[in-house]
């Protein structure tokens, strides 16, 4: 592959590419408009509504693109940097959905402080933009750009509430650790680049087979370093140490943002890179994936066992869930890529839906606690006898916990079923047993939550302990909508997967 040839190629920016890129372009244009809006008139409500409008529009655009047959088959390559297919746009719509949820939920959390929080919404939009670039990227450079945009704006958001006692600590932990991780990733990219001479995903790295063994060593180490950077962001097992502390320290909407947007984007780019680069037949890489997956399943579930703080528990359970998701990377053959994408996206949407619903309830209780004058995180036993006081919230919570645990009647189960399908077909028996034991241990901390929700309330618990409504404008409809979606997709997953077909 002589390097001279690819300079001549002239990248023409056709109209079709423009249409395909419209959601990302609209999003970045929206951010610029938001900046101008702040300059014109600083009002918290204005900026919140504006960012919601931008997100809704990006979501509509990407769904329109999805349902249309523009992105058929292989997907559209826009310059060497980006390549968009229906899978990446599905994850883009998932990202916009969760960002929308974060923005609408954080309206309440911000009221407690005095000054206007317009940069909070800006940073969230920047995070979504970074994630969008990641999702669409097909080149190490664009991936690096998206990655950095994502992490640095997140650092700003994590330490946003200055008065919280852990804000500085969480901010610093996230900053330094994500900086180390990105430098490790970059070193990896550098090593890969030095061996393959090509930074784009599209070119299959089979070319490296001819280079002598010591150089090949650099390439494998490079892949490993690259994977470690991504594993840090996905908080997979050996690199998971930052997640619980940062999740606990960050403000709750931002924890939701981190748990959903950044993880989904990172995982999509990991799948894109692995499938296009054909890493799945590099047996070093497969061993690493198996080890990391097993570790994170075990560590994630075990650490969550006696955890009382909800945010830390969600952190640990997300470690475990992304451990399960790694099974997707072990596809055995070329043609099962589509099915792998489908199961990954289904599982991710189930995970996102569950997290959004849990965080809506956590935020509602947090607001109630702050009104009762207790400035602390929500603990599991705050939710005691929620079922007998606030029935709809309790049903939502139970459904989402069941979905995380992977019990039938919920989306989580169908997701887990797809994963198990994938694992059995690729005959990786280690991961199958890991999944079985992991979900066994997982039940040991999911079930107590459900039982506390059903516990009869002791005398001292006053009724006002349970919040009136959730923060969204009309809480009842929002919650019942979430319940219906998770039940419906749990029982009739076909309606979701025909989107992916």
């Amino acid at each position, binding site marked *: 592959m002589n390097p001279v040839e690819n300079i001549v190629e002239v990248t023409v920016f056709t109209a079709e590419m423009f249409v395909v890129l419209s959601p990302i372009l609209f999003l970045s244009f929206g951010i610029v408009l938001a900046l101008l809006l702040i300059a014109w008139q600083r009002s918290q409500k204005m900026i919140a509504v504006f960012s919601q409008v931008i997100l809704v529009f990006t979501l509509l655009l990407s769904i329109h693109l999805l349902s249309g047959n523009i992105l058929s088959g292989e997907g559209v390559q826009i310059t060497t940097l980006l390549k968009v297919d229906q899978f990446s746009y599905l994850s883009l719509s998932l990202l916009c959905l969760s960002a929308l949820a974060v923005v609408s939920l954080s309206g309440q959390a911000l009221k407690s402080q005095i000054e206007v929080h317009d940069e909070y919404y800006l940073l969230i939009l920047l995070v979504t933009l970074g994630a969008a670039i990641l999702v669409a990227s097909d080149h190490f450079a664009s991936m690096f750009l998206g990655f950095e945009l994502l992490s640095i704006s997140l650092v700003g958001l994590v330490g946003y509430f200055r008065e919280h006692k852990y804000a500085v600590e969480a901010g610093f932990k996230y900053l330094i650790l994500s900086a180390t991780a990105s430098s490790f990733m970059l070193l990896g990219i550098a090593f890969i680049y030095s061996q393959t001479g090509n930074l784009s995903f599209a070119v299959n790295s089979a070319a490296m087979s001819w280079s002598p063994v010591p150089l090949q060593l650099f390439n494998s180490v490079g892949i490993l370093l690259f994977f470690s950077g991504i594993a840090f962001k996905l908080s997979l097992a050996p690199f998971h140490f930052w997640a619980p502390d940062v999740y606990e320290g960050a403000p709750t909407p931002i924890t939701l943002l981190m748990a959903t947007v950044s993880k989904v984007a990172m995982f999509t780019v990991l799948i894109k890179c692995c499938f296009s680069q054909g890493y799945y037949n590099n047996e070093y890489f497969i061993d690493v994936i198996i080890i990391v997956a097993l570790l994170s399943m075990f560590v994630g579930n075990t650490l969550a066992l006696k955890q009382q703080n909800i945010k830390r528990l969600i952190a640990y359970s997300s470690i475990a869930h992304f451990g399960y998701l790694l099974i997707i990377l072990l596809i055995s053959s070329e043609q099962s890529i589509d099915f792998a994408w489908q199961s990954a996206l289904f599982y991710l949407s189930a995970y996102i839906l569950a997290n959004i619903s849990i965080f809506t309830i956590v935020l509602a209780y947090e607001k109630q606690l702050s009104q009762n004058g207790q400035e602390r995180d929500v603990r599991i036993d705050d939710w005691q006898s929620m079922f007998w006081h606030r029935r709809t919230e309790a049903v939502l919570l139970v459904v989402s916990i069941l979905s995380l645990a992977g019990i039938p009647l919920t989306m989580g189960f169908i997701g887990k079923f797809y994963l198990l399908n994938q694992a059995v*077909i690729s005959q990786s028996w280690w991961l199958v047993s890991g999944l079985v034991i992991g979900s066994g241990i997982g039940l040991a901390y999911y*079930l107590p939550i459900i*039982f506390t929700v059903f516990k009869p309330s002791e005398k001292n618990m006053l009724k006002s302990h349970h919040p009136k409504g959730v923060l969204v404008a009309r809480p009842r409809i929002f919650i019942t909508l979430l319940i219906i979606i998770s039940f419906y997709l749990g029982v009739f997953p076909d309606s979701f997967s025909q989107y992916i077909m």
Partner: protein
Amino acid sequence: MMLTFIIFGLLLSGSIAWVTDNKVFAGIKFQAKWVSLLSVLALGSCFLLLVYFSNQNFQQLQLFERVSWISSLNIDYALALDTLSITLIVLTFILAVVCILVSWEEIQEKSGFYYFNLLATFSGVIGVFSAVDMFLFFFFWEVMLIPMTAIIAIWGHENRYFAAIKFFIFTQVSSLLMLVAIIAMAYIHQQQTGVMSFYYQDWLMLDIKIGVAQYLMLGFFIAFAVKLPSVPFHSWLPDAHTQAPTAGSVLLAGILLKTGAYGLIRFVIFLFPQASENFAPIAATLAVISILYGAKMAFAQSDFKRLVAYSSISHMGFVMLAIFSFNEIAYQGAIVTMVAHGLSSAALFSLAGMIYQRIHSRNLNDMGGFWQSAPRMGGFGLAFAAAAFGLPGLANFVGEFLSLVGAFQVFPIMVVFASLGLIGSAIYGMLLFQKTFQGVPLKQVQDLSVREFFICGSLLGLLVVLGFYPNIILGYAFGVFA
């Protein structure tokens, strides 16, 4: 269409019972228990009508519904019935009525939600007995767990949470193993015939190498061995029984154990005949161990319900021994024992519930001499204890006798050890009866009320009728094996 109507009718009437619990509509004061009782009776009778009027030959599986559900994996919603599942569904309906009657006064607070869970479990169980698509079977298998755990966890006794978690994790992890086996089978089907299918009939046509079939059979076997508690995996049952409310234990012992046995017959013996043939000696030894171990542990218990729970382990050991002896007679014995054990353990647990309502304790040492003040309860107690240790004239004897006669043809020595279980059952049966009803009367206990008398009477009537004329089941279910 009718079968789906029955399954989801139960679920629907459960939710109606929950919503309309003690509210007044159009002048009638709706009570959850009445709504659920009437709906169970109605749906039960229309199930009988369905079976009677469809006059298909139920010796083989008769398909009732087949609708595509998840098209990407070719999973469809398929229900079918044959004599085995019909017998067990009829047993489920009988025990459903018993469950509702038993929890008539016991459950006072949150009764609407209680009856919802009860009916949801029934619909899950009927789904399990009639599902023919393996994924649908697994779906119903898990769905019946959730309301059962809710019943144990919310209305149970002192450390109910521990028991509920243990029950859930045991069954869930083992059924995940089954899910792996199901997916592997579907994958093999795809390799052999090009299309992935979860349909039971297609799987029967598959021929799988013995090596692979061994592991697949093991995957299914473990899931059902946990549910039919055979010894190494049985330790969830005593906890779940002692902590569950009366109807919960009746439901658990009467029906949920039968799903394990049903699964063994349908998905281990029929699906992997060769592999289970080689596995039969091990399974038989497991069965004998669970018979003897169950009897020994029952003798050592001082809690009424825990004793009866261990006795169920011992009885289901007989069923497993009969199933794995691949003998026509033993197979009939297994069916009769399942039905008989369902009735007799349901009766013993309702008795335990009645005693608990009177003296608020399950400990045998606080009981004694109840025969003095409650002669009718004593009479029924004696009859049900007799059923437990297989007194001829009651249904259990016919079942055990047939199973052991059949199994003797195949495993003579094991059956000799299994019959030691008969002595063991006599010992704990006597212990149970004498500790509660004979001896120095410690407390005055009020005798059976009309409702309780009806429950015990009907169960005893069924046991005696089946004891003296078991052809009702045998004539009907015979030939399933042929």
